[in-house]
């Protein structure tokens, strides 16, 4: 099996989906000749032509809106929004149409499309290039919201998202693009959407994370094991919505304690639903309130202050200790 970083793994998923199915198109700003600003669509235009890998004009709403039209016709567009910070420009097309066309047409139409976007911090970037907006999509009925945590599951999840008959918002952590290589099987591989994974088993406490924060949670678990002798379970959500509540509840019924970690601002964020769902399903097992480690409720802080804003290992460890000591 070749070892690939996440960029190459995503590229492989796109390549294989396009090879298999002529209805799959790629559409976005700079996805063609340039291969995407992060090179995720590298070489696809050369292989599949400029009718299938489309360098669109600079207009997010029309990228999504025309893709809705293509999907209504039966194609399977995979759109790239250059940075998740620019997806508010097309938020009306996503909420009004991607999410609703199946319901509006009572099943006559459906929208088998994927919207890929790089999200999250770490690239020393300007405003709107480092935020985490998953909450906005998770709250929209009719969408699925997926965030992989490494090359292999990124490839498998993207393949699954492209095959999915419903619209999938697919966030890619910029922090992970070149972070690590993993063995990725050459033959195509999918994993079901909507299922969380236990990234590490444990019994004393459940750490819940996704995307770039999974690594932070795993490192925090190392610290807790090494310094506190505590055995933390780490759950990697992979799909944010529909949320795999069973996996969360099962884990917390075992551990009695949980900490959620995400890069999105804390208030009214994904951690709230995760915490509330755990309370719903595992109330009697809970030994402590579910704690949330998240970005602060502040707008963009500039990359000089980014480290202080995004959850890091010490903050997760501290929250875990407070939860254990509750």
């Amino acid at each position: 099996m070749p070892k690939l970083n996440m960029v190459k793994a995503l590229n492989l998923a796109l390549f294989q989906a396009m090879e298999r199915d002529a209805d799959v198109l790629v559409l976005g700003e700079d996805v063609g000749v340039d291969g995407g600003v992060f090179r995720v669509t590298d070489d696809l235009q050369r292989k599949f032509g400029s009718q299938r890998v489309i360098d669109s004009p600079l207009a997010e709403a029309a990228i999504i809106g025309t893709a809705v039209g293509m999907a209504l016709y039966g194609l399977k567009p995979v759109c790239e929004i250059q940075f998740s910070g620019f997806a508010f420009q097309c938020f009306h097309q996503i909420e009004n149409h991607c999410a609703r066309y199946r319901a509006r047409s009572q099943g006559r139409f459906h929208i088998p499309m994927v919207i890929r976007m790089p999200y999250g911090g770490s690239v020393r970037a300007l405003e709107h290039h480092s935020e985490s907006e998953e909450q906005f999509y998770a709250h929209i009925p009719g969408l699925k919201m997926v965030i992989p945590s490494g090359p292999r599951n990124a490839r498998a999840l993207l393949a699954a998202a492209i095959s999915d008959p419903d619209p999938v918002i697919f966030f890619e952590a910029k922090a992970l693009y070149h972070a690590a290589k993993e063995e990725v099987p050459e033959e195509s591989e999918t994993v079901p959407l909507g299922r969380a994974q236990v990234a590490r088993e444990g019994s004393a406490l459940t750490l819940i994370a996704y995307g770039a924060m999974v690594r932070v949670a795993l490192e925090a678990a190392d610290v807790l094991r090494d310094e506190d002798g505590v055995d933390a379970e780490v759950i990697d959500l992979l799909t944010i919505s529909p949320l795999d509540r069973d996996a969360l509840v099962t884990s917390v019924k075992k551990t009695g304690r949980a900490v959620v970690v995400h890069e999105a601002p804390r208030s009214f964020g994904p951690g709230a639903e995760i915490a509330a769902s755990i309370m719903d399903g595992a109330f009697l097992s809970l030994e402590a309130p579910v704690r949330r480690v998240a970005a602060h409720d502040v707008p963009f802080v500039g990359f000089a202050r980014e480290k202080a804003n995004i959850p890091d290992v010490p903050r997760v460890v501290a929250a875990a200790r407070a939860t254990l000591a509750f």
Partner: protein
Amino acid sequence: MPRITLEPRFQVEYLSILDSDGNLDTALEPKLAGEDLRALYRAMVLGRRLDERMVRLQRQGRIGTFAPTKGQEASQMGSAFTLRRIDWMVPSFRETAAMIWRGWPIEKLLLFFAGHLEGGQPALDQHDLPITIPVATQLPHAVGLAYAAQYRGDDVVVMAYFGDGATSEGDFHEALNFAGVWHVPVVFVCQNNQWAISVPLKKQTHSRTIAQKALAYGLPGIQVDGNDVLAVYAAAREAVDRARAGDGPTLIECVTYRLGVHTTADDPTKYRTDEEVAMWEQKDPLTRFRAYLEKRNLLEANVEQRIDEEIAEAVRRFESAPPADPLTMFDHVYAELPADLKAQREAMAAREPAAPARTGEMPPPSPTPMRGQRLTRR
């Protein structure tokens, strides 16, 4: 080269064939068969009569808010008439006449306006999008459909409808720009009815015409007398033929007037004068076309009466539709119901009173439309 005027000079044409005084430009008169002219007239009259019936249904509380067509029958039908069944129609929310013509059963539309989503479900063999409420958001869909048709090599043209107000939205701009760059077979039909609710055209845009907005995208734009069904037909015919031939999109501005309320929730006396309305009533598209048919001896007997009967029957069918089963709200959220929604559905089933029988499941959408020989000339 100092200060020069760029050539070619940009220009926009205006087209009128049958004016409100009955003058006919025979050189431009489209060569439509008598049966076609009759069909056009019937569809326009149906639009008008249904409109009136729907206003009454709304006043009686049997349907909810809707946007009447009255006055715009020629703009809608002159354009929609140029489409074949395999072409796509992308409506806004005021195209009742054209939607019925395209094949929506009247009772289905009534159901839609009575708050049943079932009414928004196009038939499997119908190439129509359902009503879109957020202004201008349907325009990129039309461009995407046209792109897909071109991509697949299908001999299909897409026609999209919108109002004068819609031209202010970003989606209008982005859609026309994409259409221009992609050179796809789409015809944009603006029903410039002078008002966007209470906002008159001069507060909507400082451009003299809507048609000239096409220049911003390098597209042909034409302004037509939108109350002249022959002119609308001629302009649409030309645009559809151009699209079909691979020569790209067109913007058509139909200059017309909304003779009625914006929607049944609107009170137009707040913002416009009776004189203005009376002036436009003189230009009623039906009167003009009726006189034309009369002159050509093409008028059918009792057409209004037969149409009223058709409507009455549809209203009866609409009224005998079963009440809405709340549980079906879970049927079309995703292809497969996630665990959580299943639980929500079960909770509702447990609390709702026994519901009427479910309406039949929708069969899967039809496969790819036929592939033909489409050419793009660019």
